[in-house]
């Protein structure tokens, strides 16, 4: 290496060393961007929960009855149970890799708020599972005999409900970090906590399919989502700190 190149390196390096600290928002943006980029590098892992959702909703016409009226009646339940399980499937990877390679440790020691960084990770989880599930749900619904008029309602309800699912899931994933094969435990922790989301989500979807107003259950669902957005990252951060001890 020539002396000139060496000096250029030193100058650029000392400029970078003097760089100001990143704000909490920037740190969260980078944590989100990192997770999204990683997810697109590992596309197989990304598609699994979505394929699972499509497959589960397709099993019902085969198992129950091909009669559209009957399928239409069970469609809300089928959609929500399938979405809940698909979201759960993707949760295992939420913090797992980060815990193994030391990323969580670096987050905890970054001087930034761990709560914020974990919230960013939960947002990434929602963008990668909740959002695609909400967009897939209408197709699954129509294959169960639901009229096209119900499509906007189904999407809205799914969008709101999956936010709550992602954040509840983040608590479960953080709590089971210390364990080796935690898949079953994660389900046992997360599913009971997700019951309110399931109840209001399925009810709102049922009303949307029936063509009546679904505002009341949707509002309750939105309240749940807001509650999860405010409190779940705090709980997840506390659980992650314990797992790092």
């Amino acid at each position, binding site marked *: *290496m020539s002396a000139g*190149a060496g000096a*250029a*390196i*030193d*100058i*650029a*390096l000392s*400029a*970078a*060393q*003097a*760089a*100001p*600290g*990143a704000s909490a928002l*920037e*740190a969260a943006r*980078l*944590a989100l*961007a*990192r997770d999204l*980029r*990683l997810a697109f*590098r*590992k596309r197989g892992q990304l598609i699994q929960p979505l394929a699972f959702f499509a497959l589960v909703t397709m099993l019902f016409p085969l198992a129950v009855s091909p009669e559209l009226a009957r399928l239409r009646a069970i469609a809300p339940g089928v959609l929500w149970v399938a979405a809940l399980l698909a979201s759960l499937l993707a949760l295992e990877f939420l913090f797992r*890799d980060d815990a193994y*390679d*030391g*990323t969580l*440790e*670096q*987050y*905890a*020691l*970054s*001087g*930034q*708020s761990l709560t914020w*960084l974990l919230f960013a990770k939960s947002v990434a989880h929602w963008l990668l599972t909740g959002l695609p599930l909400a967009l897939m749900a209408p197709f699954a619904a129509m294959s169960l005999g639901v009229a096209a008029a119900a499509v906007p309602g189904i999407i809205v309800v799914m969008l709101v409900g999956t936010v709550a699912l992602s954040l509840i899931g983040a608590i479960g994933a953080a709590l089971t970090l210390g364990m080796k094969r935690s898949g079953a435990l994660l389900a046992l922790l997360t599913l009971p906590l997700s019951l309110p989301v399931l109840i209001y989500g399925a009810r709102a979807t049922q009303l949307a399919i029936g063509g009546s107003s679904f505002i009341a259950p949707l509002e309750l669902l939105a309240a749940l989502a807001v509650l999860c957005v405010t409190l779940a990252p705090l709980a997840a951060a506390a659980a992650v700190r314990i797992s*790092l*001890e």
Partner: protein
Amino acid sequence: MPVRFRPQADQGHQLRVTNLRKAAPQGAEQDCGYGANPMNLRDSRAVPANHLEAENLQLWRGDHHVLKGVGFTLSRGECLQVTGSNGAGKTTLLRTLCGLMVPEEGRVLWEGRDVRTDLPAFHSALMYLGHEAPLKADLTARENLYYWIGVRRRTPGSGLDAALARVGADACRERLVRTLSAGQKRRVALAGLALMFCPLWLLDEPTTNLDAEGQQLVGALMAEQLARGGAIVVATHQQLPAAVRAARRLEMAA
């Protein structure tokens, strides 16, 4: 619960050699290169001379008494080498110092204040490098640095390239980390260290997997950190690189 007690005279963990340290370079008090840091050291009147201090740290892991009254003080520009056999608690000590583990007794002081009173401020003044490099296998070396360091500092892209060039990892800049050798990964981790000149470094076995040239590189980086008035706690059972020979030592007994 294990019975907790105060050891009366457990000297095994106390500092053995304390006076190997070099005199701090002239003017180090005024100009130690951390002007942009919120925990800056410029105001020498306000800052006590010992900037990291551990007082009687006691830590249990189940029935195992790992830290038995560890205590030391470390001033700026000093390097403390923690030695001891495998399982003696070197990593545990580092993780306790940086606040990941909470000791049953004792406390860690930074600039004279208990670090537990303001952990985020303490964390933004320190860099901890464990023996696993915190790198993502599916990102390139440069992307890894971008996200890892970017969470803490607004690092320009030219800085990332310069850091990778500095540690001799120029060639693997755009390669996925999963395709790198263990030594190359270590070098990428060191690039992160080169970018983070914060007042305190906690290094766990920084020379693992490195060739002779790489070990010299670690020495050079550490010497730079000390010359700037930064402090280092390094856990290693190997010899420190020649550039930082003047280290103080803390020996842990298993």
